[in-house]
């Protein structure tokens, strides 16, 4: 045993150090790794730390006071309400769109595929503006909405609509390549075995795309929480209070605190959003690991 171990130990030393053909020299390697690390810390880690350092600049008492302020609580509540509606809607729309595109052939399929990407290519501010033009007081449906006492713009429905629009592509974009790669054979197999349409969806399609769907939902959620541009246009920036839900989401409220020279308060609330983002990243990493294992 010892002799074998010795041979194994000796082998690398006996050969001249050979690099794999694609490996760089140590100098180049360290230069590349080093510059990547410097870049990462300057542009990602330092700002991340700065958020928390600034948030606690006036001590934990002030931090807690900011977070328990009715306006802050209202903003957090509104953000959760918005993602609570926008994310499930996009989950269903995204699934339906991906299903239609990958499992059926119909005229206009290419147009639909292109349209799904529209929210990615249009500036969020423009997206918000479009909703103002359609649903605002001077917009197409404005007079009708006013007559029926329904408020969309400068109210919660507008914020939900704008968020849904901006985050629409995430689920569909994630699912389309996955479902295309999987093809229709599994569904066909289930159908031949006697499975109806819904049964096939719940028992075959959904389990097959489960991790991809969850990944898309996570990304969609992350974007929905942080969306600023489109929401800013339709919101009207009304601070909420103890008894009324305003139209400020977390990002909008952070800005309003900052504009009112409450820098520490702004960072305190920003730390909430940052924390949620970190949770999302952890979740995303976990899903990616699960997905990778499934592909083996």
């Amino acid at each position, binding site marked *: 045993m010892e002799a074998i171990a010795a041979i194994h130990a000796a082998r690398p030393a006996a050969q001249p150090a050979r690099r794999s053909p694609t490996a760089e020299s140590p100098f180049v390697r360290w230069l590349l790794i080093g510059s990547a690390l410097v870049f990462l810390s300057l542009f990602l880690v330092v700002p991340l730390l700065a958020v928390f350092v600034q948030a606690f600049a006036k001590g934990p008492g002030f931090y807690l006071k900011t977070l328990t302020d009715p306006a802050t609580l209202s903003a957090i509540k509104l953000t959760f309400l918005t993602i609570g509606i926008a994310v499930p809607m996009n989950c269903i729309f995204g699934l339906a769109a991906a299903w239609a595109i990958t499992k059926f052939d119909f005229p206009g399929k290419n147009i639909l595929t292109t349209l799904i990407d529209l929210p990615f290519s249009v500036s969020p501010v423009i997206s918000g503006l479009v909703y103002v033009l359609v649903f605002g007081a001077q917009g197409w449906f404005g007079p009708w909405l006013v007559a029926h006492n329904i408020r969309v713009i400068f109210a919660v429905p507008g914020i939900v609509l704008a968020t849904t629009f901006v985050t629409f592509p995430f689920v569909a974009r994630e699912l389309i390549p996955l479902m295309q790669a999987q093809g229709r054979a599994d569904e066909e*197999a289930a159908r031949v075995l006697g499975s109806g349409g819904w049964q096939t969806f719940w028992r075959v399609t959904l389990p097959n795309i489960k991790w991809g769907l969850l990944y898309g939902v996570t990304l969609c959620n992350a974007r929905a929480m942080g969306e600023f541009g489109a929401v800013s246009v339709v919101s009207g920036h009304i601070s909420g209070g103890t008894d009324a839900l305003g139209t400020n989401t977390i990002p909008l409220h952070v800005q309003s605190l900052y504009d009112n020279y409450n820098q520490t308060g702004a960072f305190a609330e920003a730390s909430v959003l940052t924390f949620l983002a970190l949770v999302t990243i952890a979740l995303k990493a976990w899903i990616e690991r699960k997905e990778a294992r499934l592909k083996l």
Partner: protein
Amino acid sequence: MSVEVRNIIKQFGRFPALHGVSLKVESGELVALLGPSGSGKTTLLRIIAGLEFPDTGEGRVLFYGEDVTDMPVHKRRAGFAFQHYALFRHLDVFENIAFGLRIRSHRTRPRESEIRESVEKLLKLVQLESLAKRFPSQLSGGQRQRVALARALAIEPKVLLLDEPFGALDAKVRKELRHWLRQLHEEIHVTTLFVTHDQEEALEVADRVAILREGRIEQIGTPEEIYDYPATPFVYDFLGNVNAFAGRVHDGSVEIGESKFAAPETVGRGDTDAIAFVRPHDIHVTRRPGGPAKLAARVVLCHAAGPLAHLELERLDNGGRFTVELSKEQLHQLAPKPGERMFVELRNVKIFPEDYSI
């Protein structure tokens, strides 16, 4: 328990896949649909399963004489095995096989103990008892296809449809599974249709073989009939190694170059151009010249790997090449050398008029 299709026409966009195909598979029979890719064999199978529908109202699919043309796929109870298995990757082997039983409605679903019992019986039938808890990704290709077969059999199908079942496997496993499929068929006798582009597989496994070409059935018959009496040059060529000689037919014989061979089926026929087909094992090679009944040729190559040897020869008159198959002993006796002149005699010459082409 017969399965029948009548006058099936199917077109994909502008590409015609089937031009009025009719076929009847008798109860308990194993029929192979053989043809090159694009001949429409898979489309026909999918139409029988209900995964595709025939184009016109005339096309009919019948199970046991009952018209199922308009019946949706999940009501037909056809067992289908896909070329790439299509196993459910999130379910283990046991649950894959049980799938067709578990999805039944409350009224028709067997009890848990019955499901367990029938799945175990099927696992035994496909010789995978020890792998019940494995997931598809942990199985070899051959094992996956056996699971797919067991899954298809679990619903007690009226007909078993296999789409290139061994197409994605390597040569050795293909051969093993081919024998196993034949044995399985002897055991369970379910009416089976299977699609393949491998003539050896079709001839070895099937009771009858239907040869498809460009959406039409070219010939149907037992493997022996098909091999010995090919109806068209296409069938002749598709079934394997064949040599084609251009010649002229004249009342019971065929002239190839300077030589003349017997062709009894042309008795009474006038003077026409024709193609003569001869299988490589129907050519006899000697060194002795024998007058007009022999053709002179030069040895080009000699392959001797395997139980049979193959000799490639070149005609001296026009340089046309052909292959001869002979046993190892014959090869040793003959001991041909490249470049050497030989004389060949053609037997079982099959004549088709010139306008046929392969």
